[in-house]
């Protein structure tokens, strides 16, 4: 089976993000760029499917600039088989979904496993939008994945507001990973060596015939309102007292 994993290059979750003085982006100095954590989880799940004995090819795809090669190499070093870089703006969910739809047409994967959310835009949109564009069913926010019926379907556990929901989804389908699906491995040294020789194809988005007109324009970024804090109390009694008399919340 062919597993397609869309991944995004994002600032590391450990980096402190600051809005730049112009208010049109973030301060990029000192930012470490990584594979979006949810996409890493998606890659890991694909690898586990393959390691469970299913004959599988794992194809990574990203939409972005040539900088994103680095994140594709990371995924290849984890164990994916090949990668596709589509050069286009990577920030508009509609553009990304339309390009991914074209890649799916070209590659005909049996399943697409991706992140539920990119931690830069925090959109949580692309998977569901893509599923609608290509008419596939979706299993979002999943914490368990199990192939069934000779790989014709998958049973998925979804993290929902009230707890956990189990569904069975026929393949092909769009699957979006939540945090607790697995714990991604680190790339090994031999993995990194091998990754250098794995195929990384570059495609110009224009050649795919996808509509690249964005549906959103970010006009400006502002830092969040500062929250004044830092006052310390000495004891439980004092804590209760200030909550009662000053904050008036007890």
């Amino acid at each position, binding site marked *: 089976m062919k597993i397609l994993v869309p991944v995004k290059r994002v600032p590391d*979750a450990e980096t*402190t*993000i*600051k*809005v730049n003085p112009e208010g049109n982006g*973030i301060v990029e100095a000192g930012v470490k760029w990584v594979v979006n954590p949810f996409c890493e989880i998606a890659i890991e799940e694909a690898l586990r499917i393959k390691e469970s004995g299913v004959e599988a090819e794992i194809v990574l795809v990203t939409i972005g600039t040539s900088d994103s090669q680095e994140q594709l190499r990371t995924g290849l070093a984890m164990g994916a088989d090949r990668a596709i870089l589509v050069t286009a703006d990577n920030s508009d969910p*509609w553009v990304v979904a339309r390009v991914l739809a074209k890649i799916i047409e070209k590659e005909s994967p049996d399943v697409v496993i991706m992140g*539920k959310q990119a*931690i830069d835009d*925090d*959109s*949580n*949109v692309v*998977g*569901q*939008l893509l*599923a*609608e*564009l290509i*008419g*596939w*069913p*979706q*299993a979002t*926010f999943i914490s368990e994945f199990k192939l069934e019926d000779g790989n014709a379907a998958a049973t998925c556990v979804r*993290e929902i*507001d*009230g*707890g956990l*929901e*189990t*569904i069975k*989804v*026929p393949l092909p389908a769009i699957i979006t990973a939540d*945090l*607790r699906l697995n714990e991604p491995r680190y790339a090994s040294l031999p993995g990194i060596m091998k990754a250098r020789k794995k195929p990384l194809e570059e495609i110009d988005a224009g050649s795919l015939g996808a509509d690249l007109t*964005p*549906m*959103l*324009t*970010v006009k*400006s*970024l*502002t*830092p*969040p309102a500062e929250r004044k*804090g*830092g*006052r*310390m*109390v*000495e004891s*439980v009694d*004092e*804590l*209760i007292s200030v*909550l009662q008399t000053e*904050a008036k*919340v*007890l």
Partner: protein
Amino acid sequence: MGNVLVYAEHAHGKLPKATAVAVTAAKEAAAKMGGGDVILGLFGSDVSGLTDAAGKLGVSKVATLESPALEHHAADVAAAALKAIAEATDCDRVVFASTSKGKDIAPRLAGAMGASIATDVTGINDDGSIERPMYAGNAFATVEMHGDKKVLTVRTTAFEAQADEGSAAVEAVGADISAPANAIQFVSVEETKSDRPVLTEAERVVAGGRGLKSGENFTTVLEPLVDALGAAMGASRAAVDAGYVPNDLQVGQTGKVVAPTLYIAVGISGAIQHLAGMKDSKVIASINKDPEAPIFQISDFGLVADLFEAVPEMTEKVKGL
């Protein structure tokens, strides 16, 4: 321009507060994004028991659609149902609350309608642009949404809930929604049962982190304080990942967003991803044994203490109030 449709989320024969919040946001969308009336889109396998409550949500009409295929609001058919309702009621904007159902369905509807979509919206500006957080709340973006059709999911902490008023007419939409050949099948739901207030609606939240060290300690140390305060219980991702508490208690960037009157963080360090889900609480108090814990920087009141001593003491004293 047309009207504004609100997704009526419902479960167990009830409309949650989130739906009332979405109505308020939809009224703002009507006022600032092109006018029109606010219509509630109510669908399921049988919604007859919900129409009375729905009619009191301050909307101008409740449009209903029933089909056995719509029982679980599976995203594909739910999007088809909302698209049909939007067409029948002349709606070009659709508003959802940013709940797990809203997030599952909204982008799919945007795809079906060819609409622009913005998620987790925290404000609507007079010029029709919207505000939304990015980078775990480290930045707020002013975003222009293109096209005539727009889909929004809104943060439930950013808009007030619509109070009950009036009684809107109920009108059934004549559309035939059936399950597609590649429909998903529902197998089971494991709901976290609790008599406590709903986490996202509670006036008070007591949240525990890795500092609690075990699920048992959540039960024996934290829960008595939660209950003494009549609060909802929350948790950090680390506590959920470790299996101390169920996933639906996670507060943060990728969990629930809460803004209670009082939030007490116990044994939580204060990572930015956690703060993203609770920083808008009115009053924040925290208990942590590490004086350098970042949670203190955003807390109104911080207590450096061993939680295993401070929490039981606080529980006893709160009970005595």
